[in-house]
């Protein structure tokens, strides 16, 4: 086989219909007829110029309601991966370029429909409204996998520039402060036992950005987003149980006016049960909980301080979904969400003063990948 024979092209596309009774998610979903403004297109290419080297890149174009620059093609990842050691006991390598952040079980392929258990990933941890914060890093990542008799330990650590875009700014506060990403770090340790029957992982990141209020010149400093995720998954032949817990710290420090400095600790957790009826049909049930401030779980103090509604500080989402694999590359999915709270409701699609605490959402999606 020569180098040209290792060249591969893959891609995916998806189209969703989203209907809500209150609040808008990815476009005018609460209008009659719902929203068709959730579309994803991805295309990647890879090849192995040398036996130890993989070069891979993916371009992503998506429309998700009023999120960011709709359709604007973005480099999702672009890496040169050099595997320095690959023997029976371990694989050790470095990735240079734009690499996907290894964060929880799903972040690295969050936009590829065939890798998601449901149409929307649990929004408490894989929030879409400020997704740029955790998407990928431009820098260097090192990985190592250590193999035992019936299990493998994966360790990955990276440093790089995050992509902190306008979505993170508007999601941090309705005042839409300016954020400018700075050198950040991410790491993950994952143990897969018995071919992945049991997976356990710990992921940590420290995303840094320069913060500047657009209203108050003195309200500025360093913004630090520091999430930590504990992940657990059990895979049986017909069912999978997955749960992830996230503890996230948001901090503003080094402001010239010390009263602007502060720290909020949020918390997220979901439990997901997926059952495979056959190789073509599966269904899932999930409970997903997010709270923006652990010390103000019902948002009472937040509302008392006049910053906004109490229910914008939490979200409890019960999801039921069904997945039909029409052919190996063509999928049709449907799911319903019953939600209490708006903690991850996209501000891009909603006016904060015009939201409802209790809302329901139906999503239908068809996707194709090759």
């Amino acid at each position: 086989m020569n180098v040209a024979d290792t060249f591969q092209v893959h891609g995916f596309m998806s189209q969703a219909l989203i209907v809500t009774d209150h609040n808008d998610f990815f476009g005018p979903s609460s209008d009659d007829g719902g929203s068709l403004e959730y579309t994803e297109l991805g295309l990647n290419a890879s090849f192995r110029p040398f036996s130890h080297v993989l070069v891979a890149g993916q371009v992503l174009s998506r429309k998700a309601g009023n999120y960011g620059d709709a359709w604007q093609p973005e480099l999702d990842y672009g890496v040169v991966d050099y595997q320095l050691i690959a023997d029976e006991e371990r694989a050790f390598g470095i990735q240079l370029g734009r690499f996907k952040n290894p964060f929880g079980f799903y972040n690295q392929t969050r936009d590829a429909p065939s890798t998601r258990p449901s149409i929307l990933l649990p929004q408490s941890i894989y929030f879409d409204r400020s997704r740029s914060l955790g998407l990928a890093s431009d820098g260097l990542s090192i990985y190592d996998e250590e193999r035992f008799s019936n299990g493998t330990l994966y360790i990955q650590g990276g440093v790089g520039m995050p992509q902190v875009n306008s979505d993170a700014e508007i999601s941090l506060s309705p005042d839409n402060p300016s954020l400018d990403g700075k050198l950040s770090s991410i790491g993950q340790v994952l143990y897969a036992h018995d071919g992945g029957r049991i997976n356990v992982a710990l992921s940590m990141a420290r995303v840094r950005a320069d913060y500047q209020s657009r209203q108050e010149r003195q309200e500025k400093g360093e913004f630090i987003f520091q999430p930590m995720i504990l992940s657990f998954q059990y895979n049986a032949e017909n069912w999978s149980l997955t749960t992830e817990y996230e503890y996230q710290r948001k901090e503003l420090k080094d402001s010239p006016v010390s009263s602007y400095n502060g720290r909020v600790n949020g918390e997220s957790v979901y439990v997901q049960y997926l059952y495979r009826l056959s190789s073509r049909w599966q269904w899932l049930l999930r409970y997903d909980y997010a709270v923006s401030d652990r010390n103000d779980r019902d948002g009472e103090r937040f509302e008392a301080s006049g910053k906004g509604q109490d229910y914008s500080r939490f979200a409890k989402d019960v999801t039921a979904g069904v997945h039909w694999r029409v052919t190996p590359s063509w999928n049709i999915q449907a799911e319903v969400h019953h939600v209490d709270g708006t903690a991850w409701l996209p501000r891009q699609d909603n006016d904060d003063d015009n939201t409802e605490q209790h809302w329901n959402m139906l999503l239908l999606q068809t996707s194709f990948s090759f």
Partner: protein
Amino acid sequence: MRRGLTGCLLLMLVLVSLCSLADEPATLVIANRTVHQSALPLETLRAIFAMRQRTLPDGQAVHVYVLPDDNPVHEDFSKKILGVYPHQLRLAWDRAVFSGTGQAPNEVDDETEMLEAIVSTPGSIGYIQQSSLNDQVRVLDIE
């Protein structure tokens, strides 16, 4: 009488085929003859078939060949040799391909194509049923 005979014959046929099902030859991991190893540890094999390792322990680039997901030999190989379910393998490939950490394996339609690919591709690895084995490929023991 005639009916009885036919019935007996049918019963025997069923029994014979049941026996042959039970004794169905095992699936074997095979490699191109340029591959130096005669055995691989299970976790190394899992890493190679999950597309996380790009070279064989002898240093040459590895080329992975698989049968379609619903092929019984693929199912047998996944479950009995790798100890993972075909849907887990499929997910591992999708994750590799869409995160830029690996490539997809080369998919062939049937065992004839599998043998042809393994015979003609240096550094290739795949699997077949014992009954389809010939002496142009190397069999790898899994430890």
